[in-house]
């Protein structure tokens, strides 16, 4: 592999690795979501350094120019990460739906309780708080 492209590959993979670790350290990234990033960065870094290994892999998968194999593997990781995030987003969507439903049920229950508790002030329900900043008259 040509020296320049190898250097670029090593530096960018190392930068990715450091960035991910630093983000975990600063709590900008949860470990749960960092692991796949770390794996990608480490594999890309390893293949960047170990060029004879990369040459073997590229030969095995029928790629003539080894740096292209690095691209290929990199794209593979990107696809994996995207899939990982899609599944994470699906789970989050599911959970926020459940939260919204629970919250609606709770609101209804609270309203009923308030109505039961004090018939004297039935108007002070939770939604009237939203208008708190409007002029009262």
């Amino acid at each position, binding site marked *: 592999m040509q020296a320049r492209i190898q250097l670029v590959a090593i530096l960018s993979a190392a930068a990715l690795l450091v960035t991910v670790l630093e983000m975990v350290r600063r709590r900008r990234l949860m470990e749960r979501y960092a692991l796949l990033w770390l794996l990608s960065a480490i594999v890309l870094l390893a293949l960047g350094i170990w060029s004879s290994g990369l040459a073997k892999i590229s030969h095995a998968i029928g790629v003539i120019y080894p740096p292209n194999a690095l691209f290929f593997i990199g794209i593979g990781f990107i696809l994996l990460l995207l899939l990982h995030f899609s599944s994470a987003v699906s789970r989050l969507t599911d*959970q926020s739906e459940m939260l919204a439903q629970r919250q609606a049920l709770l609101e209804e229950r609270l309203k009923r309780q308030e109505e039961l508790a004090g018939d004297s002030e039935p108007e002070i329900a939770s939604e009237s708080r939203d208008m708190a900043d409007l002029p009262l008259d």
Partner: protein
Amino acid sequence: MSESASYLAVVPAYNESATIGGVVEALRKQAPRFDALVIDDGSGDDTSILASRAGATVLRLPFNVGIGGAVQTGFVYARDHGYDFLAQVDGDGQHDSLELERLIDAMDEEAVDVVCGSRFLTDDYRYPAPISRRTGIHIFAFLLSRIVGTRVSDPTSGFRLYNRRAIELFARDYPHDYPEVEAVLILHHHRLRMREVPVRMYARGGGRSSISTGKSAYYMVKVLLALFVGMGRRPRLLATGEPPVVGTQNVA
């Protein structure tokens, strides 16, 4: 410690219908000064019904948030309800509620913020766990002891007693997955003191461990990563009113 102090026992439970009733009953009988709070972490079985039938206050999470988030719910509850002490007791019957007094005594003896029950401190207490699990625990113990500078023999133990300072810290910031090891690190970084006391633990009374074989590899890697990056964190105190970041939950 004055008798007027208030104690909360937090029992995180995920599909523990086989054991949760017994755990709550044992708590109420053997550790009556504790109020029992069961955090039902989105169980699909009768965990919450059985827990409240046994006399516990039950918080039902709308979906499974994992052990870290479940336990943190307990910290937030304790903070908001002004509890002085919080004990964490597993819902699977591993922990002996008679041993809670031992944790309280240990906190009385020395001014520490957290007392942790350890399975490994004496030879009398044999912990029935597979060798693979024990090896993992000892690796964490070794690394963690190096980082915090004192011996931590059982960093994965979830049998702990926290004082008000620790409650307030963890109500704000508690790790998400497999939190016990990282929690020790957080204590260290916030200069809170912890000590261990020997306790006996039982094999699980039923149900399934949250740590299946498939997950234990993730457990290892996740905790090692947390320890590794944790070494790079400087000890500091969170300023009050500091904006929350990932890993911090402000549920007040």
